[in-house]
Structures are given as structure tokens and as C-alpha cells.
């Protein structure tokens, strides 16, 4: 059982650059957890604190039951794959992979046995006598993974493991990494800014922003039930549309500059109970907007601003007053700039966010 627990973890650089701010996170045994967030949100610093490469300013880190705050990095029994792979360029691949074992003074025959097993597991026996400069991106990454797994670490830390690969290889490797983690059953923490990568690999995702964890959950929870404005906007492609509205209780409607939208009674009740003011933000995913050529009950008139055909779907940019919102339409949808489209929001999937607290109400 190797769980990783972060308790009130804080890391401040210099006098007032707060990289990680009071982070609490519990990563279960054998779980693949992804720390997801934009650049500079503190996810890599969190990972480096767990590895022991940074010293936390305050808070505790537990690996298993052991408090590791003061344990040197080499004694934490964690392995890390770096964004640039960080292979040692002057050593052959086999020396790179066996280095962790040599440092632990493992007997030579045992090293050879484990090198063979690791090379076969990662399908790279033919690469062992090369130097890192002779490897392609994908091969270098396999070597970095090999170096990480050879000593059976308790925890894997992956820092943007796919960022340096080309798009096609990235899709392939994310499956490979996931399968490898399932096979080895090692608790894994991965850092990425790519939500597709996070959603496809992780058992659970922790979304970080400005040093704080905003929400932890499985991919569908983050997509369907975002807990705040940041998560709602960060998860999903194209991103969620946000419209500033005022809730008018008498009309049971959301009033914006461009439209008035009647909402079901139960929604109105929730807004009344939970919102700190009538000022709210309506969030609608582009996938939850349907487009019609003729007026429908409760439909809103919008002007087509631009169209982006992507093959599998088309993204339509619509002008609502001064705002531009995006809608996803089937690939067969035909329209031109300047046309009028009648749009309908899927009322079961809209999100209501308190403008003041930025917390989701629905």
C-alpha cells in the first residue's frame, strides 16, 4: 500500500512568490492521478516537492505512512520522468537505465537480469548500446521510463512526459504509459497542461490554478459538474461559453444584454437559495447549443460570425449582441457569415456560477 498524502503543502519562492498554496491531496494506492493546470499554476513545483527536489515552505508530505519532508530525494524511493527526459548524454542507454541500481550497489548479475527484463518490457533491447543523442523522441522517452521503473519505485512522478513528443507519438505514448502503469500497479502522479492527455490517462484529475487545487475528480465529473468558474472554463474543447446575466425572480428568467432566458422553477429556486447576489454567470458548453434555421419556442436569434469546419464537426462562432459564443454543429451543417441562426440551450446541461464567489451553483 503506497498512498501519497499532501497536507497543507505550501511552497514560496523568494519572499512572496507563492507557487503552491495550501494544497491538500490524497493519492490512493495504485492510482494514476494527474495534476492538470495552465503554465505556472504550481503543478511541477508540487511534483518536485514530492520528489524531494524542492523543500516545502510549510505542510507535510507522506509517502505511505512515512513523513518524508526531511528525507533526502534518493531515499524517498520515488522515480521521476522529466519533461526533457534528462538522460545523461555521455552514458550509453544501458548505463543510463542501470545507474539507479549501481548507485544502490545492487550485485552485477542482478543488474543484468533487471536490465534485460526492463528492456524487454519497453521493447528496446536494440537500443541498449546507443547513446541518447542517437535516439528519437519516443525512444528517449522509453529509456527515461526504463530508468524510472528498473528499481521498482514506490511512486512514479511524471513531469509533462509527453510534451516533447510530436502529436502522433503523443497519442500512442499516452496509451503506452497508461498500460504500463496498470501492469506495474505503481502509484503514479503525472503533471500536464493538456486536458486531453489528463482525461485519457488519469484515474483521477486534480485541477490546479494559481497554486491551489480547484477540484479533484474523475474526468466526467470535471466536465459535467465543474465546481468553479476556472474549472468550467479550463476543461472542455472548445471552452465553455460564459454570459453575464442577472436573475429576475418575478420573470423566472436570466436577463443578459442580448437575450432573456426563461429557466425551470427548480433552477430558479437553487439560484435564490445559493447565489450571493442576482448577478450570475451562465455557462453553456458549445456542444450543448443546438442550431436551427427557423425560430423555435425559447430559441434565441444570433448572427453567424464565422464557421470553422473541422471534419468530424463544425465550430460555429455566433454573435449575440457584443458577445461571440461558440457552438458545435454536425459536419454537414451549412451556413455563411451574416446568416441568422436560431439557437437553443440544453437546459439540463447549463451551468450557473455565482459571479461574486466564482463558485458553481448548478
Amino acid at each position, binding site marked *: 500500500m503506497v498512498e501519497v498524502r499532501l497536507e497543507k503543502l505550501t511552497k514560496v519562492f523568494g519572499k512572496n512568490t507563492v507557487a503552491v498554496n495550501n494544497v491538500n491531496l490524497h493519492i490512493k494506492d495504485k492510482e494514476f492521478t494527474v495534476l492538470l493546470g495552465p503554465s505556472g499554476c504550481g503543478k511541477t513545483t508540487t511534483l518536485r516537492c514530492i520528489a524531494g527536489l524542492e523543500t516545502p515552505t510549510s505542510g507535510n508530505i507522506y509517502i505511505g505512512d512515512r513523513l518524508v519532508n526531511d528525507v533526502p530525494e*534518493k531515499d524517498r524511493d520515488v522515480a*521521476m520522468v*522529466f519533461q*526533457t527526459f534528462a538522460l545523461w*548524454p555521455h552514458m550509453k542507454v544501458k548505463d543510463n537505465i542501470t545507474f539507479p541500481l549501481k548507485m544502490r550497489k545492487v550485485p552485477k548479475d542482478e543488474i543484468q537480469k533487471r536490465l534485460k527484463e526492463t528492456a524487454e518490457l519497453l521493447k528496446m533491447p536494440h537500443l541498449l548500446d546507443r547513446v541518447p543523442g542517437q535516439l528519437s523522441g519516443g525512444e528517449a522517452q522509453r529509456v527515461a521510463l526504463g530508468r524510472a521503473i528498473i528499481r521498482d519505485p514506490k511512486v512514479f512522478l511524471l513531469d509533462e512526459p509527453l510534451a516533447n513528443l510530436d502529436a502522433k507519438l503523443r497519442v500512442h505514448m499516452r496509451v503506452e504509459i497508461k498500460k504500463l502503469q496498470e501492469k506495474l500497479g505503481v502509484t503514479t502522479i503525472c503533471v500536464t497542461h493538456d486536458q486531453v492527455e489528463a482525461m485519457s490517462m488519469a484515474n483521477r484529475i486534480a485541477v490546479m490554478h494559481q497554486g491551489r487545487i480547484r477540484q479533484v475528480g474523475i474526468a466526467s465529473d470535471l466536465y459535467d459538474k465543474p465546481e468553479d468558474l476556472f474549472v468550467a472554463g479550463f476543461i472542455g474543447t472548445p471552452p465553455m461559453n460564459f454570459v453575464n446575466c442577472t436573475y429576475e425572480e418575478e420573470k423566472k428568467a436570466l436577463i443578459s444584454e442580448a437575450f432573456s432566458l426563461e429557466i425551470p422553477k427548480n433552477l430558479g429556486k437553487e439560484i435564490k437559495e445559493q447565489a450571493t447576489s442576482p448577478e450570475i454567470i451562465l455557462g453553456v458548453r458549445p456542444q450543448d447549443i443546438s442550431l436551427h434555421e427557423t425560430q423555435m419556442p425559447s430559441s434565441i436569434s444570433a448572427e453567424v460570425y464565422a464557421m470553422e469546419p473541422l471534419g468530424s464537426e463544425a465550430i460555429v462562432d455566433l454573435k449575440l449582441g457584443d458577445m461571440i459564443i461558440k457552438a458545435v454543429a454536425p459536419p454537414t451543417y451549412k451556413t455563411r457569415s451574416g446568416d441568422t441562426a436560431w439557437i437553443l440551450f440544453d437546459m439540463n446541461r447549463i451551468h450557473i456560477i455565482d459571479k461574486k464567489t466564482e463558485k458553481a451553483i448548478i
Partner: protein
Amino acid sequence: MTTAALKTRTEIASTPPRWIPSNPQWATYVRAWTFMPNPTLLRALLNSTIITVSHTLLLLLACSLTGYVLAKYKFRGERLIFMWIVSQMMIPGFTGLIPMYLLMVWFGWINTYWALIIPGAFSAYSIFLMRQYIITIPNEILDAARLYGCSEFGLFWRMILPLSKPALSAIGLINFVWIWNDLLWPMLMIKNREWYTIQVALNGLFELRTSFDYMSLVAASITIATLPLVIFTIVTQKYLIKGFTGLSYTKR
């Protein structure tokens, strides 16, 4: 110089000069070894080799260790130390000659090899170059080594030194040539003729100017004295070009 050693006395002095000797005197190169009585050419070469090699090795160790610490560790006063080292580069070498001489007297190092090996081994310029090179080695490479069990000195020995080969070769060669060719400092320090370096010994050849084939023997001795530099350059050539063209780490 190489061909002058092969010419006869009249050929050396001929006008216009003859580039290729009509009758090469190969025996001059053999005689050059015994021409100098004290120290012999061989002894002077040996003295210079001991001093130059040990000076260069010590210098490489000192400048790479100091450069590594200044490049990769953050500690109080680190910047101040670096600025102090850089400021040493602005002081002309000759202004330090007398203070350094007095220091050597105080240490009791006059007429010892220590005076030739130790002082120059802590060169500000070399430390500066090494620091600038090591700073370009990615931290992730070192972090990975730390994580997988390397000690701090192990990082220096197993990672920094092998990765700094181009810089070490360039700095090593510059200093090797400089120390090998240095005349003034060894002349001031060494009184015992037996311990003369090659340059001081060659300087002493003037005393033998009355000998019959003086000119060609001097040319042969100088040619022999230059050979170690040529060999050293050929050996380190692979890294030299890289070291001189751009002192920065590149992923191989």
C-alpha cells in the same frame, strides 16, 4: 626553425635564404640532446612536463570545482564571490609580480616547483569560463542523478566533469601552452640549474654562442621543445574546436 636545424652554418647565413637544405644535417637533432650541459635538454623537458602537467591538472580540478559551485549552487554571498573572481581578470598580470614574489618568499617556495605549480592554478579567467559553461548544463540532468542516488560530489565527478570535456580541453590547452612557454616566472623562482624549465634552459643556450654550429643546434633544441605542444594539440583536437567555437553545452 625545423629546417634551420638541418642546415650547415653557411646555409643558415646565406642571402637570399635557402628554404630547403641541400645536404640535411640530421645529426644536429641527435647532438641537440647533449648540447646543453646543465640541465640537459631531456632533463629540462622532464622538468617542464612535470610542472605543466601537474599545473594543468590542478587548474582543471580547481576551476571546474569552483565553476560548478558558482554555476549550480545558490548560497549567501555567491554573487559577491563571483564578482570578486571576475574583477581579478581586470588586473594586469605584471602588477601582481612583486607581491606574488614576496608571497613565495614568505611561503618559502622560492627554488621549488610549488612556486610554479600552485599560484597559477587558481586562474580567475578559467573559473569564469568553466562557470559559464557549466551554467548551460540543464539542471534536470543533475536533478535526475540526485533522485537516482548520486551524491553531490558524485554529481561533479560523474556528470559535470564528463559533460564539460570540451571546455576542459580548451582551458587545458590554453594553460598548457601558457605554462610550457612561460619564461619570466620560472626564471624568477628557480635558482638551481638542474630544475630549470625548458624555456629557462633554452634561454641559457646563449652562453654557448661560441660553439661552431650554435645556430642550427639552437634551432633543433627549440624544435624539440615545441613538439610536446604539437602532440597535445593533436590529442585534444576533437574537443578543441567545440571548446573554442562556442563554450556552451549542447545536447549530444
